[in-house]
C-alpha cells in the first residue's frame, strides 16, 4: 500500500519535473530557433562562471529576474481573483500531463510499473477537459484586473478557446472510432500494430484529416502567434496587461506548457506515442524479414527516447509556425474555427464512419 503511494508520488514528481524543465528549455529554444530562422544568433550571454553553453542558462536568469520583480496589483483589482487567475491557468495545463504515457512499463523489484502517472480510462476526455478549464484563468484575469483592455482580451480569448474546443473535440472522434478506446495507453498500444503489413498503424496514417484539424485547433488553443488574439500585442496587450513579475511569468509559462501538452497529445494520439516503428517487446521485426533482438531494458529506453523525440519535434514545429505566420484578424479566426475546422471535423467523422461501415 505504502509502496503504491510512493510510486505514484515519484511518478508525479518525475512527470512534473519533466514538463517544467522542458517548458523552461522551450523558452530558450524559442529564442534560439527564431534567431536562427532570422539569420541571428539569439540570447547567448547568460553564463555561470564563464560557462555559456549557447545561453542555456537564460531561462534561469529570466526566472530570477521575474522572482525579484514587484508583485503588483492595480488599486481597483479584485485581489484574490487577480492572484488566483495565473494559478488556475498554470494548474489546469500542468495537470493534463498526468494522463500522457511516457513509455510502456518497467519492471522494478518484481513490480510492473507503467510509465504513466495515472492510466485513466477516459484520458482523452480528461485532457480535453483540463485544456478547456484553462479558460477560467483567462476569464478571471481579465475580470479581476478591472481594466477594459484586459477584459476585451479575456473575452476574445474565451470566445476563441470555446470555438476551437468544438473543433478539437470533433477531430478526435474519428480517432476514437478507429482505436475504439478513450484510454491513452490503450490507444498507444493499438498503434503498435502494422497497416498493410509494413506501415506502423499510427493515427496519422488512419486519420490524416483528423490530425490536421486537431493540430490547428490545438495550436489555436495555445494562444500563440497566428492565433494570439487574446493578447493582440499591437492593439490591446491582452488579458495579462495588469500582471507583472512571476504572475505574468506563470501566464507565459502556461503558453509553453500548452505547447508541450499539444505536442504530447499529437504524439500520443497520432504518432504512435512511445512506439518505435517495428519494435516489439523482443526487438525489431522488420517488414522485409530482418530481425534484431534488443534487450528488454533497451526496448524501454528506446521507447521513452522515441516519445521524447517526437514531443520535441512537435514543439519545434509549433515554434517554427509561430515565427513564420503573422496574426489572423479576429473575424478570420472565427471563420477558420467555425466555417473550416468544424465542418472538416464533421466530414472526417462521416468519412471514417463510412469506411468503418464498408469494412464491416
Amino acid at each position: 500500500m505504502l509502496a503504491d503511494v510512493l510510486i505514484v508520488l515519484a511518478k508525479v514528481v518525475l512527470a512534473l519535473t519533466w514538463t517544467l524543465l522542458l517548458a523552461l528549455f522551450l523558452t530558450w529554444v524559442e529564442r534560439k530557433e527564431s534567431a536562427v530562422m532570422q539569420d541571428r544568433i539569439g540570447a547567448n550571454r547568460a553564463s555561470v562562471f564563464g560557462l555559456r553553453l549557447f545561453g542555456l542558462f537564460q531561462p534561469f536568469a529570466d526566472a530570477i529576474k521575474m522572482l525579484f520583480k514587484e508583485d503588483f496589483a492595480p488599486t481597483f483589482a479584485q485581489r484574490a481573483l487577480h492572484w488566483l487567475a495565473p494559478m488556475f491557468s498554470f494548474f489546469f495545463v500542468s495537470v493534463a500531463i498526468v494522463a500522457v504515457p511516457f513509455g510502456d512499463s518497467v519492471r522494478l523489484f518484481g513490480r510492473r510499473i507503467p510509465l504513466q502517472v495515472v492510466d485513466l480510462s477516459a484520458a482523452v476526455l480528461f485532457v480535453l477537459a483540463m485544456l478547456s478549464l484553462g479558460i477560467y484563468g483567462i476569464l478571471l484575469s481579465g475580470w479581476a484586473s478591472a481594466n477594459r483592455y484586459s477584459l476585451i482580451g479575456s473575452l476574445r480569448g474565451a470566445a476563441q478557446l470555446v470555438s476551437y474546443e468544438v473543433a478539437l473535440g470533433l477531430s478526435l472522434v474519428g480517432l476514437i472510432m478507429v482505436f475504439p478506446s478513450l484510454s491513452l495507453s490503450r490507444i498507444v498500444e493499438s498503434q503498435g500494430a502494422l497497416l498493410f503489413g509494413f506501415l506502423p498503424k499510427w493515427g496519422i496514417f488512419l486519420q490524416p484529416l483528423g490530425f490536421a484539424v486537431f493540430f490547428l485547433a490545438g495550436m489555436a488553443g495555445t494562444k500563440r502567434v497566428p492565433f494570439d488574439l487574446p493578447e493582440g500585442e499591437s492593439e490591446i496587450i491582452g488579458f495579462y496587461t495588469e500582471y507583472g513579475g512571476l504572475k505574468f511569468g506563470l501566464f507565459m509559462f502556461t503558453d509553453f506548457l500548452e505547447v508541450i501538452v499539444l505536442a504530447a497529445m499529437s504524439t500520443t494520439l497520432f504518432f504512435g506515442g512511445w512506439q518505435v516503428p517495428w519494435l516489439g517487446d523482443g526487438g525489431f521485426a522488420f517488414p522485409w524479414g530482418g530481425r534484431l533482438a534488443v534487450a528488454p531494458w533497451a526496448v524501454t529506453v528506446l521507447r521513452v527516447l522515441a516519445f521524447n523525440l517526437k514531443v520535441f519535434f512537435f514543439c519545434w514545429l509549433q515554434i517554427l509556425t509561430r515565427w513564420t505566420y503573422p496574426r489572423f484578424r479576429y473575424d478570420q479566426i472565427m471563420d477558420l474555427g467555425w466555417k473550416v475546422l468544424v465542418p472538416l471535423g464533421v466530414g472526417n467523422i462521416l468519412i471514417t464512419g463510412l469506411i468503418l461501415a464498408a469494412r464491416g
Partner: protein
Amino acid sequence: MIKAWLVIKELLRGAWITFRHFFVNMTFHTLRLFGIKTKRRGAVTIQYPEERKELSPRHRSLHRIRPRDDGKPSCVACMLCVTVCPSECISVEAAEDPDPEVQKVPAKFVVDLNRCCFCGFCVEACPVDAIRMDTGEIRLASRTRAGLEARLDKP
C-alpha cells in the same frame, strides 16, 4: 475551393522559407561548432565587444590634434573650427609660442562631446590640417558629463 488551395500553397511556401533558413543556418552553425571553417556564417550578427567591424576610412570618430614634429599640437589657435562648429562644442584658449615661426598654440583645446554632432566641419575648416576625426575610437560613453569633455591639447 481553388482559393483555399491557393491559400494553403502560399502558407506552405512561407513555411518552406523559414524552414530552409533554419536548416541552412543550423548547418553552418554546426560546422563552425566542430571547427570546420566555412566561407558563409550561420548568422549575420557581429558579437560587438569581442568582435569589431572594420570602420570605413572616412568614418568620423573621436577627434585628435595632429602633433608637430616636436610632439606639440600643430594647432595654431586660429579659432576657425570654433567659428564653424554648428553645435558650439569646441572651446580654444590661445597662448603664445616661444618659437617665432609659430604665432599661437592652444593653451586649452576642449571638445565637449556632450554636444558634438560629429559633422566634421571643424576638420574641413582647419587651415593647417590639425584637427582630425580619424582615431577610430567609437566607445565614447561616460558616467559623468565631465568625462565627455575631451582635452585634445594634452596627448
